[in-house]
């Protein structure tokens, strides 16, 4: 062991640092003499700890510096999927991204997710995204009388679609997709993941209704396997793989 000149940090102490957040703001009302609908970058400095997430920094800005900053968040713990945003040019959940993992020495850029109309600051209109999800009929379709108890399924049958049950509809995948950026008609990765969850569910009987919808001009064949969705997913879902499985079901005719 060699002795170090610097003093060892106190055991259990949390590192503290100053971080700059560069936020792409959108002002629909035109306050402070701006044109309505102006987009501009604004920088904020926040004192943060190593345990703080981007969401904590956004809270600090909203609560202590500029109350007009608008963003969505609900649970703040990576479950509700409300606070997907583009942080340092990648789609992430603000509540699952630690500031210390983003190189706090440089300004951290925060933008709204791309491809959906911005309403204010980091808030986008999610309606086109949810409309695509509704289109693939995300509910159990079964014939015959409902059983008195639960519909049983073997662990192997459950495993088949386990990955796509993790989706929280945060839109990080769909708004990371280059095809969705240029063509808003494309269903997008999330709707295909949502369909995959029911198509490969042994209890569901609506698989061919959903597959026929995804065989559409705006369906799975628009996918160019860019893998942006898989990289963006905060839940670690293998989105591109799920899309490929839907393509295979359509080409082979077997689910």
């Amino acid at each position, binding site marked *: 062991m060699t002795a170090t000149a610097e003093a060892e940090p106190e055991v259990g102490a949390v590192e503290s640092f100053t971080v700059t957040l560069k936020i792409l703001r959108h002002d629909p009302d035109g306050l402070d003499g701006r044109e309505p609908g102006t987009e501009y970058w604004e920088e904020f400095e926040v004192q943060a700890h190593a345990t703080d997430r981007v969401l904590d920094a956004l809270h600090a800005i909203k609560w202590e510096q500029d109350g007009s900053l608008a963003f969505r968040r609900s649970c703040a713990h990576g479950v509700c999927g409300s606070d997907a945003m583009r942080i340092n040019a990648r789609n992430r959940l603000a509540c699952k991204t630690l500031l210390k993992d983003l190189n706090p020495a440089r300004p951290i850029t925060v933008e709204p997710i791309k491809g959906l109309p911005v309403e204010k600051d980091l808030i986008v209109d999610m*309606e*086109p995204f949810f*409309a*695509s999800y*509704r*289109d693939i009929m995300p509910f159990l379709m079964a014939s015959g009388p409902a059983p008195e108890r639960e519909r049983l399924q073997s662990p192997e049958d459950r495993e088949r679609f386990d990955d796509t049950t993790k989706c929280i509809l945060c839109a990080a995948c769909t708004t990371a997709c280059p*095809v969705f950026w*240029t*063509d808003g*008609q494309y269903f997008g990765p999330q709707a295909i993941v949502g369909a995959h969850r029911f198509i490969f569910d042994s209890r569901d009987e609506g698989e061919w209704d959903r597959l*026929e919808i995804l*065989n*559409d*001009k*705006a*369906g799975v*064949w*628009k996918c*160019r396997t860019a893998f942006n969705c898989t990289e963006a997913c905060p839940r670690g879902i293998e989105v591109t793989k799920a899309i490929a499985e839907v*393509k295979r079901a*359509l*080409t082979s005719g077997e689910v």
Partner: protein
Amino acid sequence: MAAPELTTPRQRPANLRTLGRTQRWGWMYQRISGVILIALIFTHLFVNLMVGDGVSQIDFAFVAGKWADPLWQWWDFAMLVLAMTHGTNGMRILVDDYARRPWLRATLQWALLITMVVIIVLGSLVIWTFDACPLDSSGDLMPGVPSFCESVV
């Protein structure tokens, strides 16, 4: 508070099945033709550049010799058609993705289609009507033909 109105986000095409099939066959064709092209092109490169004297053997006589064999005529014809349709299909997908204005999209799609047809027709004509030693009306060799023609006729 009123419940949000549920509306269909996109115009459904009148004949969804036909359109869907076109997309699917386009996707499958791209993959199948790609695999065949890999085999065709690498064999072509191997035969032309590695076998025999390699790249230095390629001249008019070499091409004439290959096209005297129906196998190579069909080989080159398959490469021509597959490469042109594969490339045009890929460009069609790019145009679909990025040309948003209908008139621009239609113009580019037609330009692509016409270019493909013209090149395939011209290329096929060369492959199938190629004659290394053309004769004139009196049955003699035309002037300017390569010297090996005298031993052929």
